[in-house]
Each structure stands twice: as C-alpha cells, then as structure tokens.
C-alpha cells in the first residue's frame, strides 16, 4: 500500500513539468490569495503594534472626563497640581497636544501632524525614547525634535530643516526613535513654547503619569473619580492604546479576510479546473495502473499530494511576495486621535503560517473532487480512451 502510494506519487511528480502551464494556474491562483491576505493583515498587525508599543504597564494617561482622546481633552493648571501630588505617582508629565497641517510626502495634501509640547519629565517617563541624530530642543526656543515616522511620512520634516507652523518658523534640531511606537509619528517641542505658539497658554491637554506599580492604577482611577474637584479620568496606557488600535485593526483584518475569502473561491475553481484537466489527461495511465493491480486509494492520495504540493508552493510564493514587497514598509493613516500614525507592515512568522494554512486548505478542496473522480474511473471504458 505505502509502496503503491509512493510510486504513483513519484510518477505524477516526475511528469509534472510536462503540465507546467496548467499547474502554474494553481500556484498563481493560491499565491494571489495568500499574498493579498498576508499583505492586508500585516497592515493590521503593524498598526496595532505601533499603538500598543506606546504604552507601558506602569504608566497611565489622565484626560478630561468623557473626552476619549488627547485632542479633545484639556486640563487646567490647578488640576495638574492636584494630580501630581497624589500618592503612588512617581513621575508626572503634563503634555500639550495639537495637530498642525503638514503635507504628506505621498500625496502632497495636508495631513494632521501631532505637535506635542513636553517638559523634561516626559523623557524621564519614557526611557525608550532616544535621540538618534542631532540634539534635544532647548527650553524656551522654537525648536523641535521629530520622530522617525514623522520624518518618513511628512514632507519638509527633516533634520536641520525649518518648518513653518503658524506665523513662526521652527527648526528641527533632533531626530528620535521610540521602539517604532506612535510617538515616532510626532514632533515634540518645549511645553511653554508650544502652548504659546498654539495660543493655548494656561492649560495642558493631558498628563502622563508613572505609577509606583501597575496595580496602583485601579486605586488612582477610583480616587480621581471620587474627587469632587476633578472632572478627570485616569486610564492605564496599555488599555488606552489597545482601545485606540482596536477599531482600525479589526476593520483591516475583517476586510482582509473577506477579500481573501472571495478570492479563495475563485482560486478553488481554478484549482479544481486544473486538477480535473490533469486527471483527464492521464485517464489511460490511471486506468492502466488500476488494471495491473494498483488500488483506488493510492491514486486518490497521489492526486491529493500533487494538489497540496502545488498549493503550498503557491502559498509560500504569495507569502514571500508579500514579505518582500511590504515587510517593514512605512505607511501612515488617520488614527483614532484624528492624527496621523505612521506604522510598518509586519509580516510575522505566525501570519506566514496562517497564509500557508489557507493554501493547504484551498489545495485540499481543489484536489479532493478530481482525485475521487480519478479513483472511480471505470477501468474498461477508460482504457478504450474516451
């Protein structure tokens, strides 16, 4: 039995080159499905990674109650002082958040670049942030440091370039990296200078706080809720960013699955077509094998193996194309906070595995029916040739 399977399979595969044109239809069809699936989902994974990397378990964000995001939020100076002195807060960083219209490199139309005004404690709070070129901004001067994502996506945002926000000119004096997170899509400036330039003196947008332990968050959330002086809400950064990522990444994943499913239907038809043709061109050969004593099962299995091999080849090809064309490419989109978030396509090993699993499933469906037909061929009619 095993010998029969191996012999027939080897024989099939040896004459595969003779059917190269028809067989390539399976490979290309499945490569198309897997390529589109992997490319789309790698976008969702990359977007989620950029946002979720931004948060740390022992940090939290404080916003005005009900505001949902930094852009809509505002916190008065007196409230900042109250929160700063709460027990359990190790570092607190009042931050100003605004968006400026700057053209994107890809479209030349204006898009929302985040300008974040910070004090020295913002850097203390985020040890992952490193200046990789130039220097930090000097307090009191109209200087900016730009994240690598902002530089990749926005026209005119370059080291040592002057950019015009409002009526004034700002100089970009440094470039920073931050684990590929959402902060990298922003430009940062000295807090009072930014507030003044955006005419928003006297209030900040949000506060970032570092807690003495992640477990402290729940208690602080309750204390702030219960404080009658404060209309604020404290959210752990991890929760805040995963909520921001959830909508868009679910949308892209859903879209990718729907498109790939529809394409998969087409690819299965193509695979069926090819395998039926492969079986029918070998009618006499199969019938001869049956006549000299090979049973039906090895024939079925050999056809299935051929379909699966072609499918896996297609899956690998599709995933490889998606990896080569997209992995690490930076793009940006409008995030939940009404600001541009730059992120990289992330073709992960588990995503490639998912793609190849799809390929195997498609190959199995595409091979099964033709294989069964091959096994059921009535020997005598088949031998007579059609």
């Amino acid at each position, binding site marked *: 039995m095993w010998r029969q399977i191996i012999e027939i399979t080897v024989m099939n595969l040896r004459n595969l080159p003779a059917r190269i*044109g028809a067989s390539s239809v399976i490979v*290309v069809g499945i490569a198309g499905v897997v390529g*589109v699936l992997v490319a789309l989902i790698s976008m969702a994974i990359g977007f989620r990674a950029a946002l979720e990397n931004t948060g740390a378990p022992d940090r939290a964000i404080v916003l*005005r109650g009900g505001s949902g995001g930094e*852009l809509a939020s505002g916190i008065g100076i007196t409230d900042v002082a109250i929160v700063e002195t709460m027990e359990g807060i190790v570092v607190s960083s009042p931050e100003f958040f605004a968006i400026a219209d700057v053209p994107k490199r890809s479209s030349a139309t204006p898009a929302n670049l985040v300008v974040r005004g910070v004090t020295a404690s913002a850097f203390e709070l985020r040890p992952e942030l490193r200046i990789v070129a130039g220097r930090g901004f000097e307090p009191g001067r109209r200087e900016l440091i730009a994240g690598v994502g902002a530089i990749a996506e926005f026209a005119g945002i370059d080291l040592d370039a002057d950019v015009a926000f*409002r009526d004034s000119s700002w100089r970009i004096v440094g470039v920073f990296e931050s684990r590929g997170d959402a902060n990298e899509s922003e430009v940062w400036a000295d807090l009072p200078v930014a507030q003044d330039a955006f005419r928003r003196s006297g209030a900040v947008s949000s506060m970032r706080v570092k807690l003495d332990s992640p477990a402290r968050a729940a208690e602080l959330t309750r204390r702030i809720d219960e404080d009658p002086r404060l209309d604020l809400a404290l959210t752990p950064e991890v929760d805040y960013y995963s909520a921001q990522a959830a909508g868009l990444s679910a949308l892209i994943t859903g879209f990718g699955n729907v*498109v790939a499913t529809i394409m998969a239907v*087409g690819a299965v*038809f193509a695979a069926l077509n090819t395998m039926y043709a492969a079986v029918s061109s070998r009618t006499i050969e199969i019938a001869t094998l049956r006549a000299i004593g090979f049973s039906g099962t090895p024939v079925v299995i050999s056809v299935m193996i051929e379909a699966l091999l072609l499918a896996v080849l297609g899956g690998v090809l599709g995933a490889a194309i998606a990896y080569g064309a997209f992995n690490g490419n930076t793009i940006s989109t409008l995030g939940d906070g009404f600001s541009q978030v730059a992120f990289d396509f992330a073709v992960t090993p588990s995503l490639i595995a998912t793609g190849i699993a799809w390929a195997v499933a498609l190959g199995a469906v595409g091979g099964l029916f033709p294989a069964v037909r091959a096994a059921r061929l009535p020997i005598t009619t088949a031998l007579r040739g059609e």
Partner: protein
Amino acid sequence: MSRLSLVWSSLFRRKIRTLLTLLSVVVAFLLFGLLRSVADAFTVGVDIAGVDRLVVSPKYSIIDPLPIAHLNQIAAVSGVTAVTQAGWFGGIYQDRSKFFPKYPVDPRGYFELYPEYRIDPAQLDAFAATRIGAVAPKQLAEEFGWQIGDRIPIEADIWPKRGGDRNWEFELVGVYDAPTLEVQPVEFLFQYDYFDEARQYGTGGVGWFIVRVDDPAHSAEVARTIDALFENSPNATRTATEAEFAMQFANQVGDIGLMMTGILGAVFFTILLLTANTMAQALRERIPELAVMKTLGFTDVGVATLVLGEAMLLCLLGGMFGLCIAVALEHQIAIAIKGILPTFSISAGTLIMGALLAAGLGIAVGLVPALRARRLAIVDALRGH
C-alpha cells in the same frame, strides 16, 4: 445554426471546465464591484461637492477655531453670494461605535447653501425657531427610530456645557434628505446660536465657512481674495473648493485608491492567467474540428471570430453575473459597514467600468487562440499532428 448559438455550444462543450472558469470570472468581477465602491466611498465627498461652493478653513490646523466675525467680511467679498458656518461637535450618541457627524449650524443659512438638501419649509421654520432644535437626515432618523418631537441626548467629548455638564439634549424638529444625490447626507444639524451660548469655552469660534460664488469661473479668484483678507491676522484661512477640502480627508486615511487597485490587479492577473489557460486548452482540443469547419467553407476570419467570441462570451457572462451579485449584496454590505463608510454604494460608473473591463478581459484571453485558429492550415490540422 446562428453564430451565437454556435459560440454557445462550443463554449459549453466541456461543461465542468467552462462552469469553473466562469465562476472564477464571476468572483473577480464581484470583487471588482465591491472594492471599486469602497475606494469610491472614500472619495465620495469629491463627487457630491458643488462646483460653485468653497470651504474656508483655518490655515494651520483643522482644530483651530475661526472667529464668527469673519462671516461678514467674507460676505462682503465681491463674487460671494452667500456664506454660512459649520463646525465639528464630535459627541457620542449611545456609544462610540454608532458615530455620525454633528454640526452646529445657522439653520436657514445652511440649507440655503445646500439647496440639494430637501426639508419641509414648516420644519425649517421650526428648526430656526427652536433653541434646542435639531434636524437629522431621514436615513439616520429611521435607523434610530427617531420621531419628530423626540429628545436626543448626546454626550460631549470636545464641548462640555458651561459648568462642566457633558449632557446635551436636542429636540428633533425635522428631517431632511437629498433626493437628487446618489449618496445621502449623514450630518445631524443643530443651532449654532444655542451651542455657542451654552458651551464652556471657545465662544465665538466656528470650524469652517461655506461660501457660494456667483460663477464657478470666479472660484479661484474669490478664494485668493478671502485668504488675502485674513493673511496677516492671527486667524489666517485656507480656502479651497469643496472637492479639494474633501480630498484632504480622503488622503489622510491613506492611499485607499492605490490599495484597492493593487488588490484588483492581483485578482485580475490571476483570472487572466487562468482563463487564458482554459481557452488555449479548449482550442488545442478542437483543432481538427476547426479544420473541418474551414473545409466546409468557414473563412479564416470567421473561425477566428468564433474563437474570440467564445472568450468574450465567457468573460461578459462572468462579468455580468459578478456585478449583479455585487449589486444584490450592496444593501447588506452598506448596512454592515455603515459605521465606517456611511456612503458605500455601487455607482453606475463602476458598473460601466466593470462591463468594459469584462470586454477587455475577453479580448486579452481570446486574442492569441483566435489568431492561432486563423493561421491554422487545413491539411496540418486534419492530419492531427
């Protein structure tokens, strides 16, 4: 036997093969119909935009307010026949996932600028007269089951009321729609005057102005004049046509059009290869048959036309079914993705483009076999080499 039925019967000579090929073409065009429409939905603002309307927005950032005092200065610019204001309220009705845009507007001014929006005059009067009045697009009112007179609670995210209260309540006094537009409006409108008085901060600010010009040919000049007027003030403006304004938002999301084109490219390349392979296979099997037809007196061109016609018929049938399925699914998909793309619909343009593409695909896959059929020499073919 007519030409068409000859094409038909040779096409369905191998039923399973033709059916499978046909179905994959159907799938390709189903995807085409849906993806093209998704791309359209992102740029839809461009299509509904009136050519004689301009949008005046803050020059530096969309979050800056413009002073309402700009209104009179803009109205005085020569070439401007009407001007009104609108703004972004944000706000949450029930929960964040059920988002729809909400604008504080001047009731009469807004509907004057958008004559394509149809509202009952008595309801418009009520809107102008009711301090907490609001009007909703008909579709939105139907979706949430709102009746005239209902109180609609909206929780503020950007704009709390004075004193920090986040709960706004509006009274629905009318509904409107836009019978002439393919894509219906989605914005919930309420009185600017009430909003401005009641809000905690930002009094006297608006989001953007909408301007009508007397002649679309004057648009560029009027836009320059308006921007020049405020250039050296702390509230500089950027004036663009409605189409440009809408494009800015579409482009912010990313190059959706390019992405959809990329996916469709992959789909069609696959289908092209598959169908071309089937057609070539079909031709190979029928070489003796074609030779017989030529012997019987069919011309070279006649035989080639039959082969090409077969490919065309296959692709056109597939294209037609695919697009029909897309249209049949349109309504359900529109409901499913309404929260994200409220303007999803399959336009006549997409259907026409799909039909042309189907014809093009037919030619692309049929041309080579047709030429081979034309060149076929009777003697060689009959010998069955």
